[in-house]
């Protein structure tokens, strides 16, 4: 498959099309949107399924197989917020608070991008390692932590104490469902998992079908903020497209070094490239209240998320194939 083929295949996937439809609905000024509780319910189901299956598959994995990838992931969790901070502060000349706020988002991870990357890799016949959800949970928190620390030190944070806020990150919806799901899936054992698997399998029709509905709303939400693009200026637009490519390349490379398969490295790359828009925003809002939410929300949700979803993932797959020696 050429890169163009990959891009096309990705753009024709139900996930991408549903997202595009959601954006399109907004573009014609439709008032369509999912009820908030349905949207929340879908996100809970998706994360919970991800965790459960990850836990069930974790039983098969050996500790040695996980050790290096886990280390690589933590490394990305420290490196990516720093690189993001430096670029926004030094090149973009944003305030320390704004730079740290943006860095917290790009140091953390978007679970939906993770899911899309996994789905794409599997549709290309790859099999990302069963312990990838474990890596996802490892990447959620450190980036936020590192960036907020920088922010508080540099900007003299007059917001809420860091420790208090980090507790909310560690016990947020995403973490409870992912870490909890991993535990429950791991403990329940193969027989129990087999009973509920058709409902939760992330390759199955229920999961994929629910994901389409979810993406529909993501499209609406992202498009509703398109107007903010004018407010953030050219630098953040370039940053929102360029930073994921850099982080994605780094992720693909480090993942391959750590021994991940092409599928696994693709997913790790997408994770590194993605920007959190669920866990990071409230933590940033409370710790660095002087940072402008328009900057970090717009770049994470309106620029980087659609970019990764529609264009980035096939590129990371290309890179991972190349690093992995299967071009």
């Amino acid at each position, binding site marked *: 498959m050429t890169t163009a083929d990959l891009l096309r295949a990705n753009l024709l996937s139900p996930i991408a099309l549903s997202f595009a439809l959601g954006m399109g609905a907004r573009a014609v000024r439709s008032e369509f949107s999912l009820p908030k509780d349905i949207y929340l319910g879908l996100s809970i189901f998706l994360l919970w399924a991800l965790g459960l299956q990850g836990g069930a598959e974790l039983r098969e994995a050996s500790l040695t197989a996980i050790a290096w990838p886990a280390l690589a992931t933590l490394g990305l969790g420290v490196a990516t917020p720093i690189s993001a901070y430096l670029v926004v502060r030094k090149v973009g000349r944003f305030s320390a608070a704004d730079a740290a706020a943006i860095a917290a988002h790009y140091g953390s991870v978007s679970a939906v991008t993770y899911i899309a990357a996994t789905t794409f890799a599997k549709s290309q016949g790859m099999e990302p390692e069963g312990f990838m959800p474990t890596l996802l949970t490892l990447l959620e928190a450190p980036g936020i932590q590192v960036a907020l620390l920088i922010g508080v030190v540099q900007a003299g944070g*007059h*917001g*809420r104490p860091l420790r208090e806020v980090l507790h909310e990150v560690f016990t947020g919806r995403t973490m409870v469902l992912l870490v909890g799901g991993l535990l429950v899936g791991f403990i329940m054992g193969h027989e129990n998992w087999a009973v509920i698997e058709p409902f939760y399998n992330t390759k199955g029709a229920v999961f994929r079908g629910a994901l389409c509905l979810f993406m529909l709303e993501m499209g609406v*939400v992202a498009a*509703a*903020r398109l107007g*903010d693009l004018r*407010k953030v200026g050219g630098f953040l637009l370039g940053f929102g497209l360029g930073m994921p490519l850099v982080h994605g390349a780094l992720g693909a490379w480090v993942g391959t070094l750590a021994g991940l398969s092409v599928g696994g490295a693709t997913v790790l790359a997408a994770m590194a490239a993605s920007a959190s828009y*669920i866990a990071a*925003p*409230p933590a*940033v*809002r*409370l710790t660095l*209240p*002087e940072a402008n*939410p*328009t900057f970090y*929300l*717009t770049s994470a949700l309106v620029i980087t998320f659609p970019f990764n979803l529609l264009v980035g993932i096939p590129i990371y797959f290309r890179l991972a194939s190349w690093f992995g020696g299967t071009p």
Partner: protein
Amino acid sequence: MTPIRLKLVTIIAEHVLREHLTADLRKLGARGYSLGEVEGEGTRGVHAQDWQGKNIRVETLVSAEVAERILAHLAASYFHDYALVAYAHDVEVVRSGKFA
């Protein structure tokens, strides 16, 4: 059972402040509160969580003195960085012993 006069303080704020605001109210002397959700528009644009959570609307029945304390505290602690609206007015309350 003659009603007495108390202040009803209403606060409209970003969802992210929920825990902090209700804790503040307790500390400043309120004996209770009621909290609903509203959507809103104001002079600021984007809120941190406006696609995750709506604004909260908190009401608390308090003595005039506590009301003043609350409004002063809100002005000092939140007005600079957060989207927050607060106002107060007199109401007649039966069962007043509970509140002041």
